[in-house]
């Protein structure tokens, strides 16, 4: 069985699966149950000055019977006193010395405030701190959370303050509510961050109740934008993680967050450069127990692929991410339909007809009418392959022999007047 242990910026963890700072890590008894279930680490729900929450706080986007493809919340940081939290952190760490216990922090933008809380956390024996520069609702209106993460100078400054006060590894949690993730990532590193974690939640309005006309979640007839997470945000998170992973200046470990619910999701984050992953929504949906299959599935995957350690796959796909201009314009694939498997639902036909390039007409085979790809017209866009409900029925087949790769960069260097491919 492959070794799942990781060392994240000096923090040892029995596996790369951590709970993100959120309701599942609200208190000691919860974190302890999570560790018992198999979670390798946990980021404690953000500590700070006491707050007062509203009711209600959560809303979700569903797809038919599939609940919570996306989840949004307007809950704030911990509503428990600092003393109680610190006491429980100390007890938890004593009981679970081998697990990674990270404490999320958010206080007002004053050097002394950050110094004070960082020292208090270090005193508990916790393994590290995570600076919450990402919370997009409520706290940001008070100049905290995303208000920090959206200004690289602030990100750098506060990171420096915390580094002055503690020897613990400092992880900076970044907000995705920026046009480019690289400047805040670099700012954290400039400030001395030992690692970054991303993404925090995305600004969102989840929908509108068509009977009351009040958007969700309803707080006495009014609504405010909240933080969006869950499976639907995974592609956004993967993009931002890979952007930082391939940036030479961001040379610190990354903890990947955003829509992770299975070992497959986790493996993708690891391949794109994350050393650990953090999970919240899937646990809020199904409970701590999901970590069992995450461990089991990742371990079987590593064994099947011949990797001895989870560390062997971290970042393996990063070199496969590039800019569009470096993609090969001469790479050519077309769709092929296996008529033995085709159930004649014709979804490929109508998708191609109305959504692509009108190259899947019908043909008659043994008296049955099947969709068939006109390979001369097919641009290899993948749409039919994506809509086909039958596994293995449509495959994308390579037609070029790979002997004459040509990128847009090369093309425009050679022929500067060319702005598009032929």
């Amino acid at each position, binding site marked *: 069985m492959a070794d799942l242990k990781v060392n994240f910026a000096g923090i040892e963890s029995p596996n790369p699966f951590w709970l993100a700072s959120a309701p599942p890590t609200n208190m000691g008894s919860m974190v302890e149950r999570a560790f018992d279930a198999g979670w390798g680490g946990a980021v404690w729900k953000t500590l700070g000055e006491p707050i007062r929450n509203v009711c209600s706080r959560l809303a979700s986007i569903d797809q038919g019977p599939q609940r919570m493809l996306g989840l949004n919340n307007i809950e704030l940081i911990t509503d428990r006193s600092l003393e109680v939290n610190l006491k429980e952190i100390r007890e938890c760490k004593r009981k679970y010395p081998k697990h990674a216990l990270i404490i999320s922090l958010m206080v007002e933008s004053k050097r002394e405030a950050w110094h004070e809380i960082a020292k208090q956390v270090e005193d508990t024996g916790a393994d590290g701190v995570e600076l919450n520069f990402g919370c997009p609702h409520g706290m940001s209106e008070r100049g905290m959370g995303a208000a920090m993460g959206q200004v690289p100078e602030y990100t750098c400054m506060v990171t420096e303050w915390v580094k002055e006060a503690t020897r613990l590894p400092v992880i900076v949690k970044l907000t995705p509510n920026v046009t480019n993730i690289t400047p805040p990532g670099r700012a954290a590193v400039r400030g001395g961050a030992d690692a970054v974690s991303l993404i925090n939640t995305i600004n969102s309005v989840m929908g509108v109740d068509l009977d009351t006309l009040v958007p969700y979640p309803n707080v006495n007839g009014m609504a405010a934008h909240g933080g969006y997470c869950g499976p639907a945000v995974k592609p956004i998170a993967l993009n931002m993680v890979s952007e930082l992973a391939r940036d030479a200046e961001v040379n610190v470990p990354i903890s990947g967050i955003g829509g992770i619910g299975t070992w497959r999701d986790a493996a993708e984050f690891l391949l794109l450069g994350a050393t650990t992953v953090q999970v919240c929504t899937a646990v809020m949906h199904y409970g701590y127990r999901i970590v069992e299959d995450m461990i089991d599935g990742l371990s079987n995957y590593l064994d099947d692929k011949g990797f001895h350690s989870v560390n062997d796959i971290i970042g393996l796909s990063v070199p496969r991410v590039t800019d569009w201009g470096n993609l090969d314009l001469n790479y050519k694939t077309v769709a092929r339909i296996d008529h033995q498997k085709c*159930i004649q*639902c*014709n*979804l490929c036909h*109508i998708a191609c007809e109305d959504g692509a390039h009108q190259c899947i007409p019908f043909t008659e085979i043994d008296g049955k009418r099947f969709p068939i790809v*006109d390979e*001369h017209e097919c641009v290899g866009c993948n749409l039919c392959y994506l809509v086909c*409900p039958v596994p293995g029925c449509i495959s994308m087949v390579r037609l070029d022999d790979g002997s004459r790769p040509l990128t847009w960069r090369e093309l425009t260097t050679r022929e500067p007047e060319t702005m598009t491919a032929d």
Partner: protein
Amino acid sequence: MSTTHDSPINLAQIERNFREIAPPLTEAEAIMESHRCVYCYDAPCTRACPTHIDVPAFIKKIASGNLTGSARVIFEANPIGASCARVCPVDVLCEGACVEKTLMAKPIEIGRLQRYATDAVFTRGRDVLKAGAPNGKSIGIVGSGPAGLSCATYLARLGYAVRIYERKPLAGGMDTYGMAEYKMTQRVSQEEVAQVARLGVEIKTNTEIGRDIQLDELESQHDAVFLGVGLGATSRLNIPGEQLEGVYDALDFIERIKTRDWASIPIGRTVAVIGAGNTAIDAVTQARRLGAKRVLMIYRRTDREMPAYEYEYELAKRDAVEFWWQTAPVEIVAGADGTRAAALRCVRTEAVETDDAGRRSFRTIAGSEFEIPVDMVIKALGQQKMVDWLLQIAKLKLDAAGRVAVNPETMQTANPKFFAGGDCVNGGREAVDAAQAGKLAAQGIHLHLSGERVEFAGARVPLHEETSEIKH
């Protein structure tokens, strides 16, 4: 005819036995099932449906929470879509065609989803069909069964004044009086009848042509007439003893069950049902549900030849019916009182030859007579055509089998003022076939009277895109 309650089981048990075999979907099930639909383009289910309901469209409307729109799609293509949702042989129609069958071995439950959508509008009292602006013309419809109700619906939508003549106390025809009670209660067909009435269609029940109104009056009062008269009485056995007490016509037996007045429905201890069609299945399964100890299905051929659908046969098997294949009744024998049926005398048959179509014929085996003690005999041999009645209509033509001859596109008979559809034209098929015939007839009547060609939803097999040659 005995009307005492002879059943050895109590009324509460009978009530349980007659619970619906296909209960309604719950909201959670409907959401799950509607999302499971692949949403085929040019879908095989729609092709397979005789009324060509746009099945993927109505299912996706359920998925989007637009139940009103879903029911509209259904009723626009089939005005009796709520009954059809319960009584259609979906295994051989839409669900049989569902490609899901190939994908995951379980087709989408189209019938139950159709019920879910149509139930919703009936429960909420939402009308999804609208009558057209009055065009001043009047149509008479004879028979309020599936064909008549369907035809009336489309004609009302076109602005015709429509009057339906129905000889029975309730409208709905076979949907009201002829469906197995565990598939559909009268409430459903009455909701559909009420939907038709809300379009302004006048439904005159207890009104028989020739008794309460004469044919010539009918003809003079209306600009055109649609005949949706169905079929006549159950065919006779033509054997001795057919007049004895305890011998019933399957359709009468089923009709009495529709009252749900269990105590008034005759039931024997040992019941022989003669025939092996879908009506015979309805008779055997319901005889069992009423408490008959033994129910025998008597058929002169074998299960290879039986006309009942496979899933109907399965229903009978599940009810522990005894199948007496290659058995032909020759006499119903009276008991000691001389008036009540006490036994069925039968003879064995053997297969003799196979015709060009692969059908075997059977002949009786001399000397193989035997008697089965029974106290109830139900005849389910199919219905006769109403030849004599139909021939009163001038110029009407029937085919050799006694079916009304029509133009298959317009349903116009040889008498241009008369149109016809349903069992009297097709010889006895499904309610959904009759619904389609009513639709085509409404289009035909409108063409005949106005010269205008209209096409209602599902009037034809949906556009079949041409196949093409691809150059490689």
